[in-house]
């Protein structure tokens, strides 16, 4: 009860909430939509809705999980909303994970290893892009946001078993794409 009140009060300080959770929501939106502009719009919408609905927050989940649930719903709406199909076609601000993030692999790696790693990261990014919206959502929540299965279940409204099934399929797709599924379940 005390936690719920504390969390509810936390939501009243909207600036602090945005400061704390902006990156988490934005990253999830970016990895899901793959468009920087659309991700910013979605993140803003997420905080706007959370602020408006803060009175209905009961503290059953953490503020972080509650925000992620709003973001997950917005991503789902975005995928369904034909009015926004424009984003899928135009992708004017589409993100390439290796270039837009100025991401540099471990500095100790040789140029060959670094290049290979970039290729594999790009393969994972591409594989994630080919997943269904739900599979991608649980994949991003697990492997980008480090959320455990129960948190993902709370954020997506899915059962834990369903989350696990989506994750298994996502991992398999990623392994196939990234070249890590040369041999599975075989014998030697």
């Amino acid at each position, binding site marked *: 009860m005390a936690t719920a009140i504390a969390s509810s009060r936390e939501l009243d300080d*909207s*600036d602090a909430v*945005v*400061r704390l959770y*902006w*990156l988490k929501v*934005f*990253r999830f939106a*970016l*990895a899901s939509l793959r468009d*920087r502009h659309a*991700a*910013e719009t979605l993140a*803003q*919408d997420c*905080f*706007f809705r959370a*602020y408006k609905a803060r009175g209905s927050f009961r503290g059953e989940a953490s503020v972080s999980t509650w925000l992620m649930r709003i973001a997950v719903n917005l991503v789902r709406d975005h995928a369904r909303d034909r009015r926004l199909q424009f984003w899928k076609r135009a992708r004017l601000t589409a*993100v390439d*994970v*290796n270039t*837009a*993030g*100025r*991401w540099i*692999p471990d500095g100790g790696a040789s140029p060959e290893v670094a290049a290979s*790693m970039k290729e*594999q*990261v790009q393969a*994972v*990014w591409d594989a994630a892009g080919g997943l269904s919206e739900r599979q991608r959502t649980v994949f*991003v929540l*697990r*492997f*980008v946001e*480090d959320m*455990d*299965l129960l948190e993902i279940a709370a954020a997506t409204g899915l059962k834990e078993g369903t989350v*696990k099934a989506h*994750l*298994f399929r996502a*991992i*398999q797709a*990623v*392994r196939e794409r*990234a070249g*890590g*599924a040369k*041999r*599975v*379940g*075989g*014998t*030697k």
Partner: protein
Amino acid sequence: MIEHLSVEQISQWTIGERTPQLEQHVAECPECRAELEQLETVLVQFRAAVRAAGNSASPPAWREAASRGPWFSWPRLVLGAATLLILVALPIGWRVRVQERAAEAALADSQLLERVDSAVSQAVPEPMEPLVNLVAGNAGGVEKNRKEQR
């Protein structure tokens, strides 16, 4: 002959569900261990790449955006429709009004002309009455005059 990890077991390991049997197999099987390590490394690098891409963004002035609200809302739609209706209806109303005024003016003109005609035809000054009779070609009147002269 050694059984390698199945697809499900690899996924299970990757999401953190590690049973003693799995751990034992991974410890004893260099191929499976290498494959799992490679997958984990790629996923860790993927997380780093996405976080690097996302971390370059800073929170915008979301309050201003929030105060603007979403572009679609029913009050906005109603207001827009009302504005459109006014913009369409105003010129039509103005045109109808102009036409009505023209019709009223035409009617007033014709009524005025009728009144003038009527007044002109009825109000003949007394000195001009013989002339009117003459113009009318009243033969009876001419004959009457002649009889009076005799």
